[in-house]
């Protein structure tokens, strides 16, 4: 096990991150980072947590030198090696790196819990032939052929895909985690990782009911999972920014990023709306009509822009025609699709992780501390209700008041002359924090106590006020 400061420094160097970038990601000053990496001081719990989160790891994995093999390290390294420093800065400025880190941690926890519960490992994803994954220079970078190949591979024919969620979960063993735009900056549509298990993150930028967008994001990320990792190397993760054309350069994470993103976007459209199916749906309609656009959108579960794009490409419409189609707008573009359900649980630690963690606890495969770590739930909180878990099993492990009493007791023992025999006892909430009663016991376990003061502790856990009379006479009024 390397010393902690070496693990921190090693993690940064593995990713080729500058001290300044790393400090920005952790949220500390550069000088503080230098102190931490030289071993001049120890990281606070919050700093250690932030460091681990940057790499999508738990603190124990980080301390054990696990950053070298982390998928996010791989992405950062590639970015820093291929001129992506500006994109890294954009990522940090939006704060999205924290959510991506937490996404990777969630994927790791999912894999761990599946292992603990002896769930079958997901089968390997279908591997497209090499000639289909070559990006080439011209759009759509082979996305149409790739989409046709995957449909054939999965036996989907030319039928509309009723539910991308079911397809990913049941046919491909891919887990999907959901966040909202108030949790992840809306500039990031989604992300995906192959390691430790195939998992997709969807940012519900337009809300959970905007199912066509969800379907596009899922198909987009599926393309990344199938194509965009080096052969034999599953340490792959990527995120998908949704930015205007003029901002794309600023978000170029690595040399091929633009083409990789364009292919994934085109793949999503081709996979959800195959050319032959679009032709069949349009039938005798005027391909430029609102009726045709709506029919394609509704039957295939894609958005208006995607429907128009597909009509343009499939029927060879001019740019001018396409602009006219777009400019008509649609006052009431249907924001639903009959086959795709809204996500059941939103939040990285909701849904699958919650279910698996509570099941693992109910089966006694993990303890009360570990289940709360998986759920990111303080030990002072009860566990959610779950079949097979009693109220006693769900009860908090301790109370916030215990911690407050401990702080007051330490102050008594260490800082107040003559306080031996005094103890911090009951805690009550007051506007500025907590008021802890101090009582003095006379000799003997059964002797009554005498109230001799109070200590006020702030919500931030600092001592605000101490009023303790260490000379309190035995005859003083007994405490309540």
């Amino acid at each position, binding site marked *: 096990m390397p*010393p902690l400061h070496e693990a921190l420094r090693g993690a940064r160097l593995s990713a080729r991150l500058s001290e300044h970038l790393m400090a920005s990601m952790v949220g500390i000053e550069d000088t503080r980072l230098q102190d931490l990496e030289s071993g001049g001081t120890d990281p606070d719990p919050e700093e250690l947590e932030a460091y681990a989160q940057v790499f999508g790891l738990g603190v124990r994995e980080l301390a054990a030198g696990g950053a070298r093999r982390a998928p996010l390290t791989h992405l950062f390294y590639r970015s820093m090696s291929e001129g992506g420093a500006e994109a890294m800065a954009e990522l940090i400025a939006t704060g999205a790196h924290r959510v991506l880190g937490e996404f990777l941690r969630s994927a790791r926890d999912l894999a761990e819990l599946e292992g603990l519960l002896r769930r079958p490992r997901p089968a390997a994803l279908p591997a497209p032939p090499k000639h289909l994954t070559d990006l080439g220079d011209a759009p759509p970078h082979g996305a149409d052929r790739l989409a046709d190949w995957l449909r054939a591979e999965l036996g989907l024919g030319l039928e509309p895909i009723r539910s991308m969620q079911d397809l990913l979960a049941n046919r491909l063993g891919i887990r999907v985690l959901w966040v909202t735009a108030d949790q992840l900056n809306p500039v990031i549509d989604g992300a995906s990782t192959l390691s430790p298990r195939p998992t997709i993150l969807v940012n519900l930028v337009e809300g959970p009911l905007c199912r066509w967008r969800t379907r596009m994001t899922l198909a987009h990320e599926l393309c990344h999972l199938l194509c965009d990792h080096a052969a034999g190397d599953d340490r792959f993760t990527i995120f998908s920014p949704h930015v205007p054309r003029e901002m794309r350069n600023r978000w170029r994470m690595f040399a091929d990023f633009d083409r990789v993103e364009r292919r994934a976007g085109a793949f999503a459209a081709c996979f959800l709306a195959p050319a032959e199916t679009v032709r069949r749906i349009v039938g005798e309609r005027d391909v430029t009509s609102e009726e045709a656009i709506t029919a394609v959108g509704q039957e295939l579960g894609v958005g208006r822009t995607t429907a128009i794009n597909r009509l343009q490409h499939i029927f060879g419409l001019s740019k001018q025609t396409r602009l006219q189609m777009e400019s008509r707008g649609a006052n009431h573009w249907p924001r639903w699709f009959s086959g795709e359900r809204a996500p059941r649980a939103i939040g990285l630690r909701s849904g699958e992780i919650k279910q698996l963690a509570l099941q693992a606890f109910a089966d006694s495969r993990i303890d009360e501390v570990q289940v709360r770590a998986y759920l990111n739930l303080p030990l002072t909180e009860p566990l959610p209700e779950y079949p097979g878990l009693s109220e006693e099993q769900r009860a908090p492990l301790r109370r916030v008041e215990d911690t407050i009493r401990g702080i007051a007791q330490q102050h008594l023992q260490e*800082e107040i002359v003559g306080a031996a025999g005094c*103890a911090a006892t009951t805690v009550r909430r007051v506007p500025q924090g907590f008021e802890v009663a101090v009582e003095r016991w006379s000799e003997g376990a059964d002797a009554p106590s005498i109230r001799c003061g109070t200590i006020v502790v702030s919500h931030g856990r600092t001592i605000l006020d101490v009023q303790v009379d260490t000379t309190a006479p035995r005859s003083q009024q007994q405490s309540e």
Partner: protein
Amino acid sequence: MPAQEHHREQSASDRCVPACAAMVLSWLGRSADEEELCQGWFHTKGGYSLDAAAGVLEGRLFSLYPDSPRFYDDLASRLAEPRWIIAYMFSAPLMRFAQAFVPQPRSRFGALATKPYGELHAVVLIEADATGALYLDPYYPVTGQPFRLSRRQLAQAWQGSMAISPPRIG
């Protein structure tokens, strides 16, 4: 050298912190006994403090509150370097857990907690694994030590303040 060879039994009921510091110094290869430490220790305030212990160890005083969801992982990662940690525990639950140890430890100072609201008691955490942590307790003789607490027990007895040693060289 096995961990228990560094154990020191405290010489007075209020000397758990200096005894813990003597244990950690022994583990670090620096000879020190509790009496020596107490003589040099500032004792102008209420008692022997973790802050002073951190100073003697050339380590760091630290707060790691156990209500955080991942407090155990944080603690385990610091112990893994390896480092030893002097940590305050609530004496009442610690005594309750110790009653289940075999052989049941007995101290010349009597029960560790005698009041409904026990005082804080310092112990030395030496190792943490996937299910719990090992510690040396100066309140009891060396027999049966190091003792083991499950993660649940640790979460319940843990106060939050600790003095963390520097890593041991070699």
